[in-house]
């Protein structure tokens, strides 16, 4: 392995004595590189295997990309449990530590701002699905004769659209209620069932930036909402904490625009 390429995972405050990272991409050693008043979490990847061509070739290789994404994320996950970290989006490659330092310097105002924005906070994901049970109930409204079937079907359809409107409102309420316990919150586009492998329809794909001290309260609230919503035909899932992927850089505004 002669030539290497620098991969940056994220940015932390300068003089952050963070060590003990899990292995990085391609099982490389991860460390904090101090530059321009920031700490860049980096590792050196073999240029052969992680150059531009490799990224292009592997853009459709789910197992390659999945492995890389996971190792990138694991490093960030470790970092975010210990300090404020701005996660870098993949791919995040630099020719050298010097070019990374130049880049940090050029972006320093924005990075400063982002670090201030997320310090003491982490991201939580809450997803709301329509329960399959309700779908079954709606589908079971058929009957025997042709005309009865048509009548029943049109009733079922109008009931379903009323339901849908109600659900839409309810989901908006859930999102805003969780937003009250959050510092910032965004609604992302629902994940496609084909991508997630879930049969239930996703109604809400929300991200919430929550103060670490407010986490118990946030989770309690999610739990209450989940209890109350079961009868309404929705299912609530929460996962986290995540590094603040949705609340750094342009991602927040992009995500907000993606709503609807």
């Amino acid at each position, binding site marked *: 392995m002669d030539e290497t390429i620098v991969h940056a995972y994220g940015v932390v405050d300068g003089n952050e004595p963070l060590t003990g990272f899990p292995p990085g991409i391609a099982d490389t050693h991860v460390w904090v590189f101090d530059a321009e008043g920031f700490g860049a979490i980096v590792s050196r990847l073999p240029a052969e295997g992680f150059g531009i061509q490799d990224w292009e070739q592997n853009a459709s290789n789910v197992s390659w990309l999945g492995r890389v994404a996971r190792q990138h994320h694991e490093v960030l996950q470790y970092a975010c449990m210990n300090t404020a970290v701005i996660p870098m989006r993949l791919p995040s490659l630099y020719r050298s530590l010097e070019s990374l330092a130049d880049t940090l310097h050029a972006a320093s105002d924005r990075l400063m701002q982002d670090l201030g924005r997320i310090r003491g906070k982490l991201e939580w994901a809450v997803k709301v699905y329509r329960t399959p049970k309700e779908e079954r109930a709606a589908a079971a409204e058929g009957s025997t004769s042709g005309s009865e079937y048509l009548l029943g079907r049109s009733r079922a359809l109008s009931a379903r659209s009323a339901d849908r409107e109600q659900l839409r409102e309810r989901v908006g309420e859930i999102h805003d209620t969780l937003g009250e316990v959050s510092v910032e919150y965004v609604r992302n586009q629902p994940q496609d069932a084909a991508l997630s*492998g879930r049969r239930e329809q996703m109604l809400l794909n929300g991200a919430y930036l929550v103060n670490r001290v407010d986490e118990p309260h946030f989770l309690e609230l999610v739990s209450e909402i989940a209890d109350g919503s079961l009868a309404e035909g929705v299912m609530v899932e929460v996962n986290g904490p995540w*590094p603040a992927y949705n609340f750094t850089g342009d991602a927040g505004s992009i995500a907000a625009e993606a709503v609807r």
Partner: protein
Amino acid sequence: MSNALEKWSNEQVALVDLIDRVIGGGVVITGDVVLGIADVDLVYLGLRLVLAPAHEVDQSIPLGRRSA
């Protein structure tokens, strides 16, 4: 926790959630970056096209993570 609530830690994070954030979110700082933003989009687009069986593929990816 109630039955109505599905909660898990990032130990079992799904690939689709990971991709949503690691490639869809986070920071891109421009400068002497090897891959430009256009290429990031390219990667992302390519990915969306093929991610359909990701939940199946994901099973074969060893987690190998440690909790912090």
